Each structure stands twice: as C-alpha cells, then as structure tokens.
C-alpha cells in the first residue's frame, strides 16, 4: 500500500541522516560541528512548519513564537533547575501549551487563513517587543535574568540525572541530530496515521471533512499543538547551539526565514524544508561575509521568485518531474510493446503523483 511505501521513504532518508551523523564529526571541523547544532535546531523548526503547513494546511506565519518560547523556557528552566533534561521537557510543554491556547481561539473561532497567518505573525512580533523590554534587573524568573535585547544564557546539555556531567560540543551534535532524526521519523509516521491523513484531508477540503463527521477544529488544534511542541524542541537546540537566547528568535526575520524554508523546500514534503534550512543557512552565512548584497534583499528575491515561478517548492517539483518522466517512459514502453503485437494486460505503471 501507498502508506507503507511513503513511510519506507522516510526511513531511508532517516538512515542516510544517521550515516551523516556518524561521519560528520570525523570529516568536519570542530567549529562547523558547533554551528551545526544551532542549524539543526532551525531545521527542527522548519520541520515543524512543514508538518503543520505542508500537511495540516495551517498557514502559521508565526511558528517562531513557539520556537522562541521553547528556547527561552529551556534557558530559564535549565538555569533554575541546574539540569537540562527536565528543562527540555518544560520547553516543549510550554510551547505546546501556548499553542493549544492560541489554537483554541483561532480554530474554534474558525478564522480564515489570512487572519490566521496574520494573527500568528502578530503574536510572535508582540513577544519580540515584549521580551526586548525586559532588560532591567527586575525582569527575572527565579535565577534567570531575561536580559532584554541582550538575551539570556542557555546552559549546555548534561547527561540525564547528573547535572555536573556536561556534554562536549560533538556529543551535543549527536544528541541534536538524534532529535532531528527521531522527530523526522515521528512526523513521517504521523502523516500516515488516521489522524495525519484526516489532517491532510482537512487541508484539501475542510467542508468535506466536516460532512464526514470529523471535528476539524480538534484535528487542526491537535496538529498545530504537535507542531508547536516540535518547534519548541527546535528552540532548545538552537539555544544550546549558541549558548544564548536573544529576542531575535521571535523576530520578523526569523519568521520570514521559516516560511521561506518551507516554500523553497516545498509543501507536502518533510525532508524538503529540512534541506532548505541547511542550504539557506549556509547561503545567508556566505552572504553575510560580503558587503555587496544585503541578506534581506536576497531572501526577498528568493521568496518572490518561488511564489511566482516555483510555487510548489523544489522537492515536489523535482519529484513531479521524475514521476511524469517515469510515466512517459512507461507509456512509451507500452506503445512499443503494442507495436510489437505482444499485447500484455495490466495497467500503465506508475501512479499519478
């Protein structure tokens, strides 16, 4: 069945990622490994939006709100608890709880796509301006100073149960990669379950799903909350990767980037946005070192070009090409067979898609 095949694809990609994880520390420079952790955090963020927008059809322009909340919650919790394991859990829960409350209002109010997009973006912008104003010593949660626009320090990961056993950067890289791969498998699995397929069906036609007795609000809330939890986890690794959290995690630039990853990688694929995250991170990093072209300028051009010319994104466009070519080849093969007057029963190979 189709389902089994889709999930097998996920596992194959995951296996390749495991391979990458094992060779990366051997072949890459130490510094690259350190920055990679933070990019992995971003990739988890991209994956979360790929899930809720690409599969759930929920146009969330402010996915960074959950990412940033996860990052701040981790930093604050880890500083207070003195260990990272519980703090990660808290970060994920904070992001999910915030999304559940926000989601209740927008989905049960049945606001339109445009409103949803703008409201979520606004939420992250408000968080941005809110957290920027917390620079005084009075803004303090437990032992953690919020630090205004300077942000607050994020402690590194430690071995569960032993707060003094800090992990080395390459070990943190392994943990982050493991998280990314596991979340990727989880998402790949979720979209093949009943729940995931109903979410896709709702994306395709909400009215129809309603008329088939599905409470679409609940499903949307569910996948939205799951996506936020994942984004929160991404925030944790981002914070750990740069050992700091600043208000920029909520910023307009970060929100735009997240959308661009999904647009470029393609909606309806999980791996596309992940790859796009890595690619664009290194592109903008390379651009940042030269003065000629402004990063915003390039990102703006990329976004406009993709919307106009490659609206489906890279991965679906490529697989679409491959599928049509396969189909054409199969068709030609069949014609050839027919011409040879050896008609053989059976359908044209290759499914639409």
């Amino acid at each position, binding site marked *: 069945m*189709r389902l089994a095949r889709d999930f097998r694809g996920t596992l194959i990609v995951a296996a390749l990622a495991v391979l990458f994880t094992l060779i990366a520390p051997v072949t890459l420079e130490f510094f690259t490994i350190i920055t990679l952790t933070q990019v992995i955090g971003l990739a988890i963020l991209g994956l979360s939006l790929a899930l809720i927008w690409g599969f759930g059809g929920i146009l969330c322009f402010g996915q960074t709100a959950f990412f940033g909340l996860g990052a701040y919650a981790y930093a604050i919790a880890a500083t207070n608890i003195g260990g990272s394991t519980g703090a990660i859990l808290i970060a994920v829960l904070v992001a999910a709880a915030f999304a559940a409350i926000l989601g209740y209002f927008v989905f049960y109010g049945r606001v339109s796509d445009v409103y949803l997009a703008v409201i979520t973006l606004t939420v992250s912008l408000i968080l941005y301006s809110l957290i920027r104003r917390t620079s005084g010593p009075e803004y303090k949660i437990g032992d953690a100073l919020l630090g205004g626009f300077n942000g607050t320090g994020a402690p590194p990961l430690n071995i569960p149960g032993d707060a003094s056993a800090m992990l080395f950067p390459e070990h943190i890289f392994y943990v982050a990669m493991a998280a990314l791969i596991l979340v990727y498998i989880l998402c790949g699995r979720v979209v093949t379950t009943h729940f995931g*397929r109903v979410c896709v069906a709702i994306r395709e036609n909400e*009215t*129809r799903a*309603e008329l*088939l*007795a599905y409470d679409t609000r609940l499903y949307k809330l569910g996948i939205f909350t799951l996506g936020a939890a994942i984004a929160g986890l991404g925030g944790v690794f981002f914070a750990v990767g740069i050992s700091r959290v600043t208000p920029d995690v909520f910023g307009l630039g970060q929100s735009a980037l997240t959308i661009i990853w999904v647009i470029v990688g393609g909606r309806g694929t999980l791996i596309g946005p992940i790859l796009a995250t890595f690619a664009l991170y290194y592109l903008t990093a390379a651009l940042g070192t030269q003065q000629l072209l402004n990063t915003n300028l390039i990102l703006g051009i990329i976004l406009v070009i993709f919307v106009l010319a490659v609206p489906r994104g890279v991965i679906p466009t490529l697989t679409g090409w491959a599928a049509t070519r396969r189909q054409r080849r199969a068709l030609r093969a069949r014609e050839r067979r027919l011409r040879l007057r050896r008609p053989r029963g059976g359908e044209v190979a290759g499914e639409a898609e």
Partner: protein
Amino acid sequence: MRRGEVVLETRNLSMAFGGVRAVDRVDFTLWDGELRCLIGPNGAGKSTFFKCLTGQLRPTEGDVVIRDVHVAGREPHEIAALGVGIKTQVPNVFDGLSAEENIWIAARRWHGAERARTLTRETIERLQLGEVRTRIVGTLAHGQRQWVELGMVVAADPWLVLLDEPAAGMTHEETGRTAELIREINRSAAMIVVEHDMQFIRMISRTVTLFHEGRILMEDSMDAISADPVAREIYLGHRA
C-alpha cells in the same frame, strides 16, 4: 429500524439572508425508509433548506429534529456524526488525494483500520471506481468526482442520506447508474434528494416536494405534480 417512524422533521424553519427569506417557515417531515425528492426552480431555496439540515447554515428561525435530536444551529460534524450522509450541490471532495484515499477517510471515521480497508475496497467495486482507484480526484472528470463523493457517503453506511443534485453534470448513462445506486442506498436509509432532472426523478421517486420562493408549494407524486397547472406554470413552464 421500524417503518413509519419520523426520521427528520423541520418546524417553522426559516433562513433569511439580509432581507431575503430564502427559506420561509417550512414544515417538513420525512418518514423512515422514505425517498423524497425536492424540486423547484432555480433559487427556490432548496439548497438553502438543505444546508439548514446539514448544519452548513444556522437557521434564523425554527427547528430541525433528526431522530429526536434538535440539530438546528449544530455543527455539520455533529449532525453527520448522527449517521447522516451528505453530498452537497457543489462537489466537495479531497482534490489532492486519490479516489481510494477519499473513500478510506470516510470509512475510517466509523471503523477500525482493517474493516475500513475492506469497506473501501467494497465501495470502490460497488461504484465501479476500480479504474480510477489510484487517480488523484482533482484530475477526474466531473461525473467521476460526483461518484467519488457518493462513494464517501455510501462508505460511511449512513441511515439518513441527503443528496443535493447528485446527477448534475452527468452523462445519460451515468445518470441511470446513479438512479440505480440511489434506489440501492434507499434500502437501508431514508433519503432526501434535490434534483432538477425530471427523468431522473421519475426513475427514483415516490413522493416529491415542490419548493417555490422558499416555501413548500405541494407534496405529491411526480405524476400528480406534473399534471397540476400551477406547478407546471412555476416550474415545468420554466423548463420548457
């Protein structure tokens, strides 16, 4: 399921859009096992009435009772969850999914994975959708999309079925098959079918309700309605 029971009833049902009453104080009763056709000229208010039954519109006044449950103003999914199968006038299918997946989604709502798969296979056979099983529904012809939608209704095995213009845009042959299917569904479910096609209605109906300007004008057999001069004037006259 005992015959002769009321399965759906509206009392004083009204739906106003601004100043226009598209449905105007309608009292309507559907009995168990019945197959009722709704007819009426364009804009008579049939679809609006229909949407009040399915929860897509919240009636401005009056009540809808389905099997003792007051459903006016409820959400569509709550009404569908009572076991009501619904097909809308504008085809509503999952365009980006295959025909099979469309029907599976419907079946899986009520059954476990195993049973849903069997039901999906059976429904596809029953509606002769085998050829397009794996095709993306958005790429199918209009008639076939309608059939996929009917398949979704059937797969859920409802006891009350509401269809708004199920044969619209179908070829002559497809229309005949649809009529057959509707008679078959009717064996296990009470039905309301909105239609324009006279021939089609003759194929399936016993009692016909004639809508005009938001009200029920008559309720009788098709033959009696086509013989009635007033009905001919407002409805059949339009068509001639």
